[in-house]
């Protein structure tokens, strides 16, 4: 299954969520999206957005500088 990557570095809440939402709306069920952010709030917000909209978080990791989240688009 294909995986799409988007870099949302420097964007601050809620722009990473909006960009993630807009990208997911263009994708098909089952596709995976890897999101790179620098706003630490994304570590909470993107998984919440994914949960309430029926998408699955596959991984969410934070380093000193980055948050990387991988999700699978729901049906």
């Amino acid at each position: 299954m294909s995986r799409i990557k988007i870099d949302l570095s420097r964007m601050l809440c809620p722009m990473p969520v909006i960009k993630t939402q807009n990208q997911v709306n263009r994708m098909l069920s089952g596709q995976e999206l890897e999101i790179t952010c620098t706003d630490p709030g994304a570590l909470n917000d993107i998984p919440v957005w994914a949960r309430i909209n029926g998408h699955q978080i596959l991984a969410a990791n934070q380093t000193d500088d980055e948050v990387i989240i991988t999700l699978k688009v729901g049906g």
Partner: protein
Amino acid sequence: MRSLSVEQLNLINSMANKHKAIALISGGLDSMLAVKVIQEQGIEVEGINFYTGFCVEGHTHAIRNQDKEKQKRNNALWVAEQLGIKLHIVDVIEEYKDVLINPKHGYGANMNPCLDCKIFMVNKAVDWIEEHHAQGFDFIITGEVIGQRPMSQLKAKMPIIAKQSGANDRLVRPLSAKNLEQTLPEREGWIVREKLYGFTGRSRKPQIELAKQFGFDDFATPAGGCCFLTDKSYSDKLTDLWQAKNAKEYELDDIMLLKVGRHVRPKANFKLIIARDSGECKFLEGYRKEFISIRALSHKGPMALVDGDIDEGDYDLAASIVARFGQGKFADEVELDINIPEQPSLQISTAPFANENMLQEWYL
């Protein structure tokens, strides 16, 4: 007349055509309660949240050190999760410019165009329903309470919002509905008016009580609303920005930078944005390719951006002001680096600007 129980209403709605509402979700308590009141009548609700660029939460706790320990959550998303509803977040940054720059109904105490803003957002919800007509949304709900806020929530303004937004009688305010004209969903029996509320005034007690009834014990209650434009300090900086540009215009970076740092305008042609902690330093470093930036080399000190058309003759003034906010403020001389995008950087040695010479009106 005997009223129907929630279970009976749910059953009736599930047997009849299921009606759906879209709710404007700010992340505060009122919109949360408004949704819950309508959900209790068996209506399916989804949320919509508009991002104007001036929303208080989010940015600040991603930037300042003092906010790092606060819970990093987007309140609108959190509310949606508590209510079990979908939330659509819509970027309206570009369209919102006209609302802020040319408010037909004017500004509030600061640069807040609250009435135009509410009309705009309800209108955007109307547009959203039309764009997503296949999903079958029937009406719009908001958490507006009559008299809660001085500009946009006066009783006389409620019909204006309904009319000028184009929502008309499809706009339901569940928390104040009993004090307003009947709406279409009430007349058609999609929702029961008796099960709506008649809250008025600035007191939050009825909302707190209702929250308790619903079992909500954690909710956001921002003192000045959820918008930077209601803040005097922020509004002053925005006014200064427009004066400096000689035009009422802005880009997203402009309004983001108004939220960050200490803003000092020693001359009409430029201002300094001086970081107040390491979090802000890191944030401002992200703008080094677009702005001239200044930082002390010989001492620890803050990152500063130069916003405006600074003359070379002003470099010493700018550098000396930045020097006074660092650890070299009592030194005879501080060496600073002036980074100019796409040009070789300059090193300058200067005495820190004397505190007594800093004019109060320079601080924005």
